[in-house]
């Protein structure tokens, strides 16, 4: 597709009335970010093309400012209110950070002994020592910073990311400030058996802001499993803004699993996943997300070729005062593609869940099949869920739909399980396990499935111990 066509699709999306956001940078946090950018702009690594991209991205950010409630796409996650003081950008990990990181990686190995090809992004910087050194045939890797220094085109591609999410303020900050991450390339036709795991790890050694930009190009007809894992070892509040661009070639097949471990209450974590789907490609993604102070997982996807399929499924487990936002925008600009979003939230205590799903269908995307389903079980009176599914359809021959439900556990089901001998707390746990299982049991790999279910069970038993 030509840039013009893409441009016109984007414009159409914007034609929908949005809440006006006329803000010049004015609050302290925004001024601090502007100050930071002007101090750093001459020091960033990368070609002049990258420098221009950073300028443009920051200019877009400057125009929008930090998103508040008044910005529709961020209505339920007020970043402007949460990010009062931007922390200094993370330095290259020092010995203290590496020492804290090592046990985290050991723990990952112990929890799931399956052999994986692991790439560790420690405090925003690719860490070769913690990562796998032997690459399977067909896989090549470059740290983003090396690629930037060498002025390679693939760094530009990772920053450009097909223009996905280019109006998102958080992603604009990410493009402006990221200097590292990892660029992975899977050769055309490669069949990669062993999962490729990208670990976004924060060491907790320092209070800082982490930005990173990574990408995986999955070549034409290649088949791969990709695990995206967010771990936080933080004993201090940090701010994370990391992006991963998954670029699927024609007929590429990707099974993707995303795991986000629980984060501290004073952490801000924004993870952006950018999905570029070409003709006949297929992405199946399953996620298990725990809560944090302010956590947002945003996925911007686009079908750039016909007959592609994308299924995004997720479980979100929240308790305490946690907040987690899942925001998905899937753009159908090619015909005959299929998108599915299926998310189950379990929310306890005073936690808040957000699911915003938008499927937009351009006039040329005939025969689009798009379905969204979001369900939430609230375990306390003070738990809350905000569901906003949206369809924006400009083609006439499509099958699209969405459904959202929110409520407590079903009394009839509870009685049924109790009547078989399970005490109330165990009956609840079994039903909740099932609710999460509906999503997780679809994972083809049994071991991965069990690791995720164990994680859910641990959360449930922890909840039981808290005396709910």
């Amino acid at each position, binding site marked *: 597709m030509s840039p013009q066509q893409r441009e016109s699709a984007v414009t159409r999306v914007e034609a929908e009335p949005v809440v006006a956001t006329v803000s010049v940078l004015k609050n302290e946090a925004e001024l601090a970010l502007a100050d930071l950018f002007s101090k750093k702009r001459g020091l960033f690594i990368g070609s002049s093309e990258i420098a221009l991209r950073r300028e443009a991205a920051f200019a877009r950010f400057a125009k929008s400012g930090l998103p508040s409630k008044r910005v529709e796409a961020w209505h339920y996650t007020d970043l402007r209110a949460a990010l009062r003081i931007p922390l200094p950008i993370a330095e290259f990990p020092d010995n203290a950070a590496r020492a804290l990181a090592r046990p985290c990686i050991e723990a990952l190995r112990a929890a799931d002994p399956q052999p994986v090809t692991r790439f560790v992004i420690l405090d925003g910087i690719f860490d070769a020592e913690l990562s796998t050194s032997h690459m399977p045939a067909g896989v090549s890797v470059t740290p983003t910073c090396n690629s930037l220094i060498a002025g390679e085109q693939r760094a530009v591609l990772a920053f450009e990311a097909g223009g996905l999410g280019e109006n998102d303020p958080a992603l604009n900050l990410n493009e402006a400030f990221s200097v590292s991450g990892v660029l992975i390339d899977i050769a055309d036709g490669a069949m990669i058996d062993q999962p490729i795991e990208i670990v976004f790890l924060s060491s907790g050694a320092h209070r800082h802001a982490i930005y990173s930009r990574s990408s995986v190009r999955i070549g034409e007809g290649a088949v791969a499993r990709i695990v995206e894992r967010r771990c936080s070892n933080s004993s201090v509040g940090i701010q994370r803004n990391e992006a991963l661009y998954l670029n699927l070639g024609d007929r590429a097949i990707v099974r993707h699993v995303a795991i986000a471990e629980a984060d501290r209450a004073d952490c801000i974590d924004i993870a952006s996943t950018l999905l570029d789907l070409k003709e006949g490609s297929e992405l199946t993604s399953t996620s298990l997300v725990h809560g944090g102070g302010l956590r947002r997982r945003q996925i911007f996807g686009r079908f750039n070729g016909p007959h592609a399929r994308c299924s995004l499924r997720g479980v979100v487990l929240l308790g305490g005062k946690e907040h987690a936002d899942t925001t998905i925008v899937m753009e159908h600009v090619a015909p005959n593609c299929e998108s599915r979003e299926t998310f189950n939230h379990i929310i306890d205590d005073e936690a808040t869940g957000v699911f915003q799903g938008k499927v937009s269908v351009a006039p040329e995307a005939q025969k689009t099949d798009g379905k969204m389903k979001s369900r939430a079980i609230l375990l306390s009176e003070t738990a809350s869920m905000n569901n906003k599914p949206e369809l924006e359809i400009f083609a006439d021959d499509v099958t699209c739909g969405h459904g959202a439900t929110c409520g407590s556990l079903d009394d009839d089901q509870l009685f049924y399980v109790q009547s078989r001998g399970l005490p109330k707390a165990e009956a609840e746990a079994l039903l909740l396990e099932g609710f*999460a299982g509906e999503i997780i049991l679809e994972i083809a790999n049994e071991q991965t499935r069990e690791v995720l279910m164990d994680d859910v069970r641990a959360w449930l038993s922890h909840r039981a111990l808290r005396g709910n």
Partner: protein
Amino acid sequence: MLEIINLHAEIDGKKILNGLTLTVKDGEVAAIMGPNGSGKSTLSYVVAGRSDYKVTGGDVLLNGQSILELGAHERAAKGLFLAFQYPLEIPGVTTMTFLKASINAQRKQRGEPELSTPDFMKKVRAAAAKMGVKDEMLRRPLNVGFSGGEKKRLEILQMVLLEPSFAILDETDSGLDIDALRIVGDGVNSLRAKDRGFLVITHYQRLLDHIVPDTVHVQSQGRIVKSGGPELAHELEKNGYRDYVAAAA
């Protein structure tokens, strides 16, 4: 033995059981018949311990001990089983997982060791084969997408595995084809024993052809209004409830 003594119960302020009295002895199979809405399922829920029903009078004794103060799970561990008229779907929990959780939850309450996985599998496979339940079904989430008849078979499979001392079957025959009716009948008959009682709620004689009851009772407006032997079921099939509904009013 199950003794229901002058039981009164209501839900949402509506009185449904009005002084129901019925004793089912060890080794006995009792059948309850009665018009729609007469409170048969309500009776089964109240006995099984569903907490949204309020018991306003009377008592229920299982093997001589009052169970009204016990939770549903405790009643189950004491040997009570209810085959639901409308079995619930439990998404995301495979039938196998559910069966194992049930058996072990009861064993735990009784202070017995948990069944090992191989022992459990052996037991389930044998019972499933007997009930015509395929392996594939055991790996599916419980009752999700099962046909009406498959759900009822699964109820009986659960009963066979849990080996209750008293079982209530609420319209287990509805939705069953002729072969399934025989399989369910055989399942129940195989459990008939000196120390085990059954209360079979049904609308039709056809189930009672397979599970021949010792006693038959007519329930109307929340009470037992007539009791007799198997011949009473035949009489009801011929004449309907007209006489008894009038008598209860």
